[in-house]
């Protein structure tokens, strides 16, 4: 047998990418980035604050962490609610104790259902970024453009109404986008998205949207839930990452360490201690700058311009 002859044709085999979303550049050849106050490594903590409806949707796909047993899956519904009711407050306390400000990637449903949480995030000075409507609001190619536009608009409006501020950042569920997403996010007025994991500093899409890479490999979901490592090992890995990046920063300019944490994973009683220890150890590192995503993007823009 043979394959269709087009399988050996490569119409996009050319300099640069096989798409027009963003240009190629090597991180290490870029102009060194300068963070405020001479800090060398920006530590971006991003907490995913999510509401998983008891009736999961499978179109375009079921979100990671969603319901798993036949209806009604009280087990997973309430275990995730535990993260929102209890675990998230452990995280807020840990951030206050370490003196750090963070991003909270919230589903619009959190603002509608639990306004107290939104008030408490604001009172602590953290940034809220948009994380879809709820955990049925997944995006992938095949989702009609009008439906995706409506999903993005509804999320932004819900969060704006609850906080009084239009969110500047967007995180897709499972970082999954359609071909339309970058343009729809730009159209909806977002400054940045956090979905593409191909870099370690902000960069621009061709349409002007900024990508602030939230490394999925460094997330608690990946390390603890998928790879089944301990919270202590997670902490050790983040410190190893910080120390490596701090070394690079001496030669190449500012670096960034994204910590993506999930209340129902990291904020369990037996794990939160390791996370508090990690925050303390990071805060004590010279050169560490804890900042929400929007502040990192602003500092990057300023450094680019300067």
């Amino acid at each position, binding site marked *: *047998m043979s*394959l269709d002859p087009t399988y050996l044709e490569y119409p996009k085999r050319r*300099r640069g990418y096989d798409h027009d979303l963003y240009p190629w550049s090597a991180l290490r050849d870029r102009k060194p980035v300068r963070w405020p106050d001479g800090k060398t490594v920006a530590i971006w903590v991003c907490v995913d604050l999510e509401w998983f409806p008891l009736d999961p949707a499978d179109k375009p796909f079921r979100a990671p962490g969603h319901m798993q047993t036949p209806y009604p899956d009280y087990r997973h519904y309430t275990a995730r609610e535990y993260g929102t009711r209890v675990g998230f407050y452990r995280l807020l306390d840990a951030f206050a104790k370490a003196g750090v400000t963070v991003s909270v990637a919230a589903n619009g449903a959190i603002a509608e259902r639990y306004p107290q949480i939104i008030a408490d995030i604001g009172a602590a000075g953290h940034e809220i970024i948009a994380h879809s409507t709820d955990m049925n609001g997944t995006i992938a190619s095949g989702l009609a453009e009008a439906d995706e536009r409506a999903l993005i608009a509804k999320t932004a409006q819900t969060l704006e109404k609850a906080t009084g501020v239009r969110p500047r950042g967007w995180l897709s569920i499972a*970082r999954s986008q359609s071909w339309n997403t970058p343009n729809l996010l730009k159209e909806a007025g977002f400054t940045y998205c956090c*979905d593409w*994991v191909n870099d370690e500093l902000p960069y621009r899409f061709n349409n002007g949207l900024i990508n602030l890479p939230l490394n999925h490999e460094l997330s608690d979901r990946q*390390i603890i839930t998928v790879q089944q490592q301990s919270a202590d090992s997670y902490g050790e890995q*983040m410190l190893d990452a910080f120390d490596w990046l701090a070394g690079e920063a001496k030669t190449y300019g500012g670096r960034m360490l994204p910590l993506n944490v999930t209340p129902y994973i990291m904020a369990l009683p037996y794990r939160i201690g390791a996370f508090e220890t990690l925050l303390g150890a990071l805060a004590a590192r010279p050169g560490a700058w804890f900042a929400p995503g929007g502040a990192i993007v602003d500092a990057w823009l300023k450094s680019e311009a300067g």
Partner: protein
Amino acid sequence: MDGARKADPELYDFQAYRGRPKIVWPGGKTVAVWVAPNLEYYEIDPPANPFRKSWTKPHPDVVGYSHRDHSNRVSHWRMAEAMSKHGFPGSVSLSVALCQHHPEVVEDGAKRGWEFFSHGIYNTRYTYGMDEAQERAIIEDSIRTVAAATGQKIRGWLAPALTHTPRTLDLIAEYGLDYTCDLYHDDQVQAVKVKSGKLASIPYSLEVNDHYGFFIYNMSPRAYADTLLRQFDRLAAEGAASGTVMCIPLHAYLIGQPHRVGPFERVLEHIARDGRAWIARAGEIVDAWRLQTGDAG
């Protein structure tokens, strides 16, 4: 697939690990260590091969694509610098279309004295289902593309995404390539039976491949580093009887992540200092083996 299926690939005879001729690597070293970075390009929206999907998710698979793109923007240089610092050249399994897409990455490897062999055109185009003319076309494309980009004549082959046909090894040998990285049956170089030419199987590795370490066995970075050290210590000891080969197959988007590259660099430092390793490129290892065995192919 073409033709009748065989129960045995019929590429080599059984040879027990005991009682073999003694191989001694240059300088009296007991284990030849080679590092094999996969420099790859994955297409964002490749055509479908009837035997295998490229991405498990609808295109664009943002995480799948951008994770691999991390190699070409960020982590290649981090991995390569750690290797150069401790005296490890790379023997590259190359998606040859990378020569067109990001020539900067290929040039960087060439400047460091790395050897290039083919890993197909793209890691998103599979050999499954190709007829002979199509398979010849990707081999000829590989030879031509790498020569134009680096001046090197490729000597080896690691099938794109490890996809083969029963004729793959015969064809690469016919084109004058003289080693394959696709067979995992031994810790020493072995001759492969091919219709024409000479072909050696150089030990590559699935088991200590960073992909297996991190995504099959779910190792922490330090656990993977410990795995490499144990692999090295055992092969270096056994190689006193007859020289062994240790391959460290890498993907920058995995090993070059900030939480992994530090523990990995400490492995390179240890192996370089140990004294038993002949740190070499794949082709040099095949040459040294041929010289000692008088391999007739």
